[in-house]
């Protein structure tokens, strides 16, 4: 069942077409990574899904059209995490930040308290609850922003270059948390990124260029199109690069994303 349906989306800034007859469906419970070079329209698509851009095309979430009438109902079940959490914060402590959306939705204080405890434990930010979010490190800020999105118990999680400011260890930790959420709670994840290493956690990779889908597929098969990815300026993950080089020497016969297994193959 498709939880997000985009049919023939046309969108432009002035005379410049960002999307022209663009279509994409996302199935419930999957993790889809939408990648592409800078300026390809990834953030525009996030804004369209969030109902922050006027568009007159057919974009549906949960079978409902994204329009003025439905948007608040849709947003209640979609969590957004953006590239720069500073733009998103509105309060002076992490605790207030986590509570903010639910307070606006008039949720009972006892429920909010319980949710704050749960989410802060899950993300390991219990010790930061009294800290000003602006004083946190990049990784901690992203954890708080993710926490704010998870407070809503979303059915869809949309990440817009959300892990860009995070160091490699914290990125892995956050990706693992999101993966658990995706598999255990069947939360659909749509992540927008230009980092294909991040995409390895997802089930499907969609690559955009000039407002069109140029590659769409599951792992690891999708990396057969590696040359196209490089051509548009995307850097493929190290495991893919290694597999391709070993393929030239007939040491492996397909792309493998597990480096340990690749080393074993070569060792044989």
């Amino acid at each position, binding site marked *: 069942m498709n939880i997000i349906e985009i049919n023939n989306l046309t969108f432009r800034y002035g005379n410049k077409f960002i999307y022209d007859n663009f279509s994409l469906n996302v199935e419930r419970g999957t993790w889809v990574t939408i990648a592409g070079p800078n300026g390809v329209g990834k953030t525009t698509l996030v804004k369209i899904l*969030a109902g*922050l851009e006027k568009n007159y095309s057919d974009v549906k979430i949960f079978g409902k059209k994204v329009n003025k009438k439905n948007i*608040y109902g849709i*947003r*209640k079940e979609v969590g*957004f995490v953006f590239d720069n959490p500073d*733009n*998103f*914060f*509105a*309060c*002076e*402590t992490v*605790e*207030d930040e986590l*509570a*903010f*959306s*639910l*307070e*606006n*939705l*008039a*949720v*009972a*204080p006892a429920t*909010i*308290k319980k949710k*704050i405890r749960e989410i802060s434990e899950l993300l390991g930010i219990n010790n930061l609850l*009294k*800290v*000003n979010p602006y004083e946190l490190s990049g990784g901690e800020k992203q954890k708080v922003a993710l926490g*704010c999105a998870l407070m809503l118990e979303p059915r869809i999680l949309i990440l817009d270059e959300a892990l860009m400011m995070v160091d490699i260890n914290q990125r892995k930790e956050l990706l693992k948390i999101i993966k658990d959420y995706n598999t255990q709670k069947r939360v659909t994840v749509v992540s927008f990124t230009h980092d294909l290493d991040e995409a390895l956690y997802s089930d499907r990779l969609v690559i955009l260029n000039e407002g069109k889908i140029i590659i769409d597929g599951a792992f690891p098969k999708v990396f057969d199109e590696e040359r196209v990815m490089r051509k548009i300026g995307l850097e493929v993950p190290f495991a893919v690069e290694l597999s391709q080089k070993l393929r030239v020497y007939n040491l492996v016969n397909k792309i493998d994303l597990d480096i340990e297994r690749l080393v074993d193959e070569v060792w044989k």
Partner: protein
Amino acid sequence: MKSNYPFFRYIPKDSKVHMMNSKMKIIWFLLSFFISLVTFDYLSFLIFSLFLIFIILKTKIDFKIYASNVLILWPLYCTLFTIIYLISFNLLLSLLIALKFMLIIILFIILTFTTSLSEIAWGFESFFSPLKKVGIPVSNISLRMALIIKFISNLFDQAREIRKSMAYRGVPYKKNIITSFQKMIIPVIRLSYKLSLRTIAAMKLRFYGHCKKRTNYRENKVTSFDKTLIFIDAILLYVVIWMGWL
């Protein structure tokens, strides 16, 4: 003396002032604000200043932080003093009004240093809740006021960043303050416009103004400290008015 804490930014501490009930704190703030307005003699001024120093000590926030934040506005105090002096030619009156303005600033700083954005919004909302009966959207207005206060502190941050980055690019700030200020105006206006657009988008996504009613998940209980503070304020108000009549 420079501070890392610009105006209107909350500083988390576990002081009695921080733990005050939001509604009681707003009542205390409004009463104190009124006292500062009706103070017209030196003795009342001294008593009220001592009371504010007592509150400042109770906040457990370093006195230097208050001092740096109050003194940052010295051009405003000087301008006010000059204007009043040019109108009245009364040195003492000009000094008193400038100092009074400084007291009001101190009062605002105490409120914002010790009260988080949502507590300020909640405090105003519960204080003005009777107005809801006549159809005034008190929840929205309160949160909007609190967001404006937050926006001012962000603006200070941005201005500081612009100043630094321009200094790196060779703008001689220390040589000519007026010229450097002119150079900062356009970037600050542009940045604050951008910031306001981002804030609007973030607020929309976070359901701001969606429900007519909001909740506050951490309402502090009214303590004897809150009641004592308001009681002292009420007595001070009486004393100040009485002394003004003498």
